[in-house]
């Protein structure tokens, strides 16, 4: 039986991106279309679209790098959309049978990281507002990213002595300091660290050229410099 193919219009609707984005992705090889018998019309297999949308880390990384359009299902343009999707993730995690101890921790860690993006960048987004938010209950993975100012730029307003992304990341995860002084803020990432240190959860977090790894049931901070620079923040939670 011949496999049903999506037209470019159907594929655009399926992924929640524009036709032009699909054409561009076809031209640059990001998501290559099928052409029947050497024709000019673009077609897509559903399994290729699903595979494309399942690579959360690549989608988020590409978005922070080039800012190209995201599949609508992963883009939260504002905090209200993020809150609604976070509640949906909570329901999905509960239904997936994840332990009732772990569900609140995964949701609160994702919530603190995502809300940090909105709280610290509100009115200051350099270009595209909002966050990437995707999760995969089979891979037990949550991915968040933003194209905001990043940790160093945010913290250096209240801690001007901070000069490197590595130092900024260390402060963000260890010291109580607010990036929105004089308001008393800045405890979200300390909470994240504590949850990871005491539970079977791990975190990868990158901002600027600094990468932090927090490992399951381990209180140590592993911070290194990365090869490339990340615009804003990029986080992967695994459980």
């Amino acid at each position, binding site marked *: 039986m011949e496999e049903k193919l999506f037209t470019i219009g159907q594929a655009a609707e399926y992924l929640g991106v524009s036709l032009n984005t699909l054409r561009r992705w076809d031209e640059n090889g990001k998501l290559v279309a099928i052409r029947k018998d050497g024709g000019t019309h673009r077609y897509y297999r559903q399994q290729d679209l699903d595979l494309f949308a399942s690579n959360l880390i690549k989608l988020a990384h590409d978005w922070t790098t080039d800012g190209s359009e995201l599949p609508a299902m992963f883009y939260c343009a504002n905090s209200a959309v993020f809150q609604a999707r976070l509640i949906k993730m*909570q329901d999905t995690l509960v239904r997936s049978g994840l332990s009732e101890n772990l569900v609140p*921790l995964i949701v609160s860690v994702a919530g603190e990281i995502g809300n940090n993006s909105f709280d610290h960048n509100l009115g200051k987004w350099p270009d595209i507002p909002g966050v990437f938010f995707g999760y995969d209950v089979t891979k037990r993975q949550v991915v968040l990213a933003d194209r905001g100012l990043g940790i160093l730029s945010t913290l250096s307003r209240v801690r001007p002595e901070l000069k490197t992304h590595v130092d900024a990341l260390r402060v963000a995860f260890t010291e109580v300091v607010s990036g929105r002084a004089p308001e008393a803020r800045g405890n979200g990432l*300390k909470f994240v660290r504590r949850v990871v240190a005491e539970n079977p959860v791990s975190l990868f977090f990158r901002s600027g050229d600094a990468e932090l790894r927090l490992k399951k049931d381990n209180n140590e901070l592993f911070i290194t410099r990365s090869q490339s620079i990340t615009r804003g923040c990029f986080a992967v939670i695994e459980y």
Partner: protein
Amino acid sequence: MRIELKKFGTTLISRQSGKEAFAALQSTVIDIAVDEIIEIDFEGVITFSPSWGDEFLTPLLNQFGDRLVLLPTSNPSVKITIKLLEEINKESFKAKS
């Protein structure tokens, strides 16, 4: 007086909604007796975070001090949040055992 947090939602995450919840509660607590205890009941809450807690519990602690009492819960997101808020604010919440 017992405040059931589930009436504010089962996912208590953002600073903004914590602030709104605190503001909404003010109309309820404004008339309470000067010696009345305010109990915070976490029953039914699935996810709790320091952002929400800092906008709701911290100002309530400042407002009512020892009259604010947290009821016991096994929810780990509540427990870690309370501990962190106590360290940040350098003030302990009164807890009912």
